[in-house]
């Protein structure tokens, strides 16, 4: 299945493309809002800061394309910064509005823990999840959502306190971790998402 991979600039896409190909996806890198809107599946990677990330999405009308996809339950996965961009706002870039798909704000890790969170951490899905399963996921992040937004299932992790490791609703998946780097567990998650996308 064709997967439109949104290229917002600094993200290193090689791992994402290789990960999608391993589960039978046909990734196509694009910055074109129409292509993102129309693709059977879309993938928003994300590395970098919240402010520039939102700016890149708004510049080409990608923000609207993603909002509409998600509202219509069209298969969409957003990872790392991509998940954070779905929120209303982030402590990382005060004053910048996010996509507002998730009713919540992104904050920085606090307490006596390594920041960035760097490595494998255990993920605990809520009972209603259909895509997410328990397991170890690979993280590289300094910011996170604190609580599952209303209307979404998801998974929590613990790094100096609970944080949102992932959200899911229908065929829309948001991962704070990197499924493409999370071994067979991450690969199985991407496969389940693509299978759901094909339905």
């Amino acid at each position, binding site marked *: 299945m064709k997967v439109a991979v949104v290229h917002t600039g600094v993200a290193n896409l090689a791992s994402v493309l*290789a990960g999608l190909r391993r589960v039978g996806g046909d990734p196509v890198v694009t910055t074109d809002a129409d292509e993102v809107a129309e693709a059977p599946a879309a993938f928003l990677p994300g590395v970098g800061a919240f402010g520039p990330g939102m700016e890149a999405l708004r510049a080409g009308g990608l923000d609207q394309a993603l909002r509409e996809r998600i509202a219509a339950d069209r298969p969409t996965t957003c990872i790392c910064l991509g998940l954070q961009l779905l929120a209303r706002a982030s402590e990382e870039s005060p004053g910048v509005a996010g996509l507002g798909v998730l009713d919540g704000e992104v904050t920085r890790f606090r307490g006596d823990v390594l920041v960035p969170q*760097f490595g494998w951490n255990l993920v605990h899905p809520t009972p209603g999840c259909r895509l997410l399963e328990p397991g170890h996921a690979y993280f590289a992040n300094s910011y996170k959502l604190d609580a599952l937004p209303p209307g979404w299932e998801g998974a929590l992790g613990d790094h100096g306190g609970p944080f949102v490791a992932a959200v899911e609703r229908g065929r829309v998946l948001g991962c704070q971790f990197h499924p493409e780097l999370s071994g067979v567990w991450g690969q199985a998650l991407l496969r389940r998402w693509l299978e759901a996308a094909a339905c």
Partner: protein
Amino acid sequence: MLTRRVIPCLDVRDGRVVKGVRFQNLRDAGDPAEQAARYEATGADELVILDVSATPEGRANAAHTVAAVRRVLGIPLTVGGGIRAVDDAARLLDAGADKVSVNTAAVTDPALLERLAARFGRQFTVIAIDAARNPAGGWEVVVRSGTHRPGLDAVGWARDAVARGAGEILLTSWDQDGTREGYDTALLAAVSDAVDVPVIASGGADHAEHLVEALRAGADAVLAASIFHDGDTTPARVKDVIATHGFEVRR
């Protein structure tokens, strides 16, 4: 809670995995992509590839090797060896590396760390430090595969490198590397205490208990090459042992 990581290392020259003690008497040890896939399947948490090619032609192969490994590898990949400029790092990241490690070039040009972190972020930027015991006390940095000692205190350099943008330290004991007599735990403790980024222990592992000693000394992750190459053991099996000592691991 984050798990402690076990990281196999592949030394690659001209597109082939090689083995040797202190970079001497290198012998062929297989295809990088095949070995990478085998390590992931047997429990590796990450993989490090160090390109030890001696020539520019061999070096040019590194990106091909990284791309071939990336196709099959679903865990984080760090690549080091011969990175002297931001463009060298960009080529490897485009090929599929998730992090790059710099060694000699950062000693010669410490601002390289700042440029790498500014362009790609701290999480992409690993400082590799080879440290040798100093007869007068402490440890000094060795570079160019051990042929040169620039007179730099290893702990001080670790601190400086982190301040400049390194997000992780790959710390190799020059005295222990290849000996299979255990890590230099005093070195690990000194550097772990000095910085607030993860320290990967390298050099000297022979069996799982050695890895446990390194974690006790303060390492967040342990890197080993020879113990995994020969099939003596697997990352999964050493993690079983590490877990019995109370450390969290991914299984």
